[in-house]
């Protein structure tokens, strides 16, 4: 483990600013998006200053360089998640686009009336709404693995999962880490249960890819999606992993240049994956930026990052649990948790908490976290979320706890 994660703050230019009132920035909104190290920003500038060109089409020097770099980024992603073959890596705009791609392409070819798409009650809207669109189109049914446990210790109901996993279930899509609860699901176990009834699996790794090691072959998933911007990479780039044998059976979801083998007036034929699913000029620069981000994370070591983020979140949960009138969601304070803490204060609405904390230089997220049905089930209109990344420190948790105590007093009128 690196001796001192706080030394890494020097790598992130955005952290070195003071906000109104001379307050340092305490950025605790990393589950929404993370900051970018100098290495990523430099990789982007370097591409635009030196290599900028379109890929695949040109035979000139710059186009060859750009094509090589884009291919190297794809190979780097394959290595990052231990995929067997770079052709299993499709670049997307992000997690949301990856789910939409599978929901449209795979469902169009495979989903029939009466089939079931199984999701869980803790899915982000981006792993829910695309399936609603696809299922409604063909007359398939959506079912949900419920969440059980009291508010302080919520998790998927695995007995219910086994009851719900009938032969009608054709695909089971679920999140690795809940962005609202901080709960981590046992991906390998869930995939194994799905496999027993012949269902495919899609894993939403948006909240895990930048925090902990991922090995798609050990997990045994069929598809896995994540976003570059939540793992120190640029916005506008993400990844869909799909097993090669599966991808080759899927129809394109968008048509255009780059994805065709041969085009005639009435009919065309497609290239194999990954090109089949990347119509049009791809996001070359941000793929290269993502490459730099993966290198940065692996220099630190993802196990060390996971330990750092998890320790901070656990410390935060323990510190916040002492604030009068607070209700913490997710794992019990003291139990292991992913790098975020979601909570509600008795006398202060999430919006007011976020506005108040912002005056203290603290960036939090307040709202339904793109989890409206889950929040309704929990009986909460909204929560506040503090989420941690490799540059956060224990001192920032002290600042957060002090601010929250003042907020509770301010709105409670005590």
């Amino acid at each position: 483990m690196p001796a001192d994660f706080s030394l890494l703050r020097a790598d992130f230019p955005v952290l070195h600013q003071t906000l109104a009132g001379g307050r340092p920035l305490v950025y605790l909104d990393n589950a929404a998006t993370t900051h970018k190290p100098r290495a990523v920003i430099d990789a982007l500038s370097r591409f635009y200053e030196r290599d900028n060109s379109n890929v695949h089409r040109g035979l000139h020097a710059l186009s060859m360089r750009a094509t090589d770099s884009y291919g190297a980024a794809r190979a780097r992603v394959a290595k990052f998640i231990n995929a067997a073959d770079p052709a299993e890596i499709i670049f997307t705009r992000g997690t949301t686009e990856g789910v939409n791609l599978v929901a449209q392409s795979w469902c169009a070819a495979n989903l029939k009336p009466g089939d079931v798409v199984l999701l869980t009650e803790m899915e982000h809207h981006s792993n829910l709404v695309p399936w609603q669109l696809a299922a409604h189109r063909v007359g398939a049914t959506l079912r949900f693995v419920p969440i059980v446990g009291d508010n302080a210790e919520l998790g998927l109901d695995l007995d219910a999962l086994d009851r719900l996993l009938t032969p009608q279930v054709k695909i089971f899509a679920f999140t690795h880490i809940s962005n609202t609860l901080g709960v981590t699901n046992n991906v390998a176990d869930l995939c194994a249960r799905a496999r027993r009834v012949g269902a495919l699996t899609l894993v939403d790794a948006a909240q895990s890819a930048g925090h902990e090691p991922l090995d798609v072959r050990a997990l045994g998933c069929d598809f896995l999606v994540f976003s570059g911007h939540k793992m120190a990479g640029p916005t506008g780039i993400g990844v869909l992993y799909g097993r090669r044998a599966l991808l080759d059976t899927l129809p394109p979801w968008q048509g255009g240049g780059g994805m065709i083998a041969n085009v005639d007036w009435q009919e065309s034929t497609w290239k194999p994956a990954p090109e089949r699913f990347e119509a049009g000029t791809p996001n070359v620069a941000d793929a290269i930026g993502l490459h730099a981000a993966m290198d940065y994370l692996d220099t630190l070591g993802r196990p060390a990052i996971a330990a750092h983020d998890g320790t901070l979140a656990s410390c935060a949960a323990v510190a916040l649990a002492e604030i009068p009138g607070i209700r913490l969601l997710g794992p019990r304070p003291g139990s292991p948790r992913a790098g975020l803490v979601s909570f509600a204060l008795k006398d202060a609405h999430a919006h007011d908490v976020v506005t108040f904390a912002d005056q203290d230089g603290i960036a939090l997220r307040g709202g339904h976290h793109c989890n409206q049905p889950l929040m309704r089930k929990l009986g909460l209109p909204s929560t506040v979320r503090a989420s941690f990344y490799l540059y956060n420190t224990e001192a920032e948790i002290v600042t957060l706890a002090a601010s929250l105590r003042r907020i509770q007093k301010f709105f409670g009128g005590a």
Partner: protein
Amino acid sequence: MSDFDDLYRDIILDHNRRPRNRRRLPTANRVVTADNPTCGDNCTVYLRVEGGRIAEISFEGSSCAISQASTSIMTSQLKGKTVAEAEAAFAKFKNVVTTGRAPEDEPEQAAFAGVHAFPARIKCATLGWHAALEALQQPDQPPPAS
């Protein structure tokens, strides 16, 4: 005064802690729920409109201090008003929260002048107003089932 203190004036904090007219209105003949999709908040406004005037008004819902207080104050301001008067009051209020200019004749509305420094919160301040104005445009309905 900081932007923050200007946003959360005492009158707003007071209405947040002790909202006026916060209840269901069994005799209502107009009910509208407005949602703030960015945060999941909602506000239900109940009206009893009689002879073109707001005879009774109340609200329910979970929302932030800005939204609770503005809706609470709105209910006290709109009682007894005609549709045209209510629309004029909202136009005035919208002007306060978007420009930050405080009307001298309306101390309760003036308390919301600080909202304009927080553009993301303007929606919170107008949530209840939007529900009430929409309700005024509706035909009479049977009272809500109890």
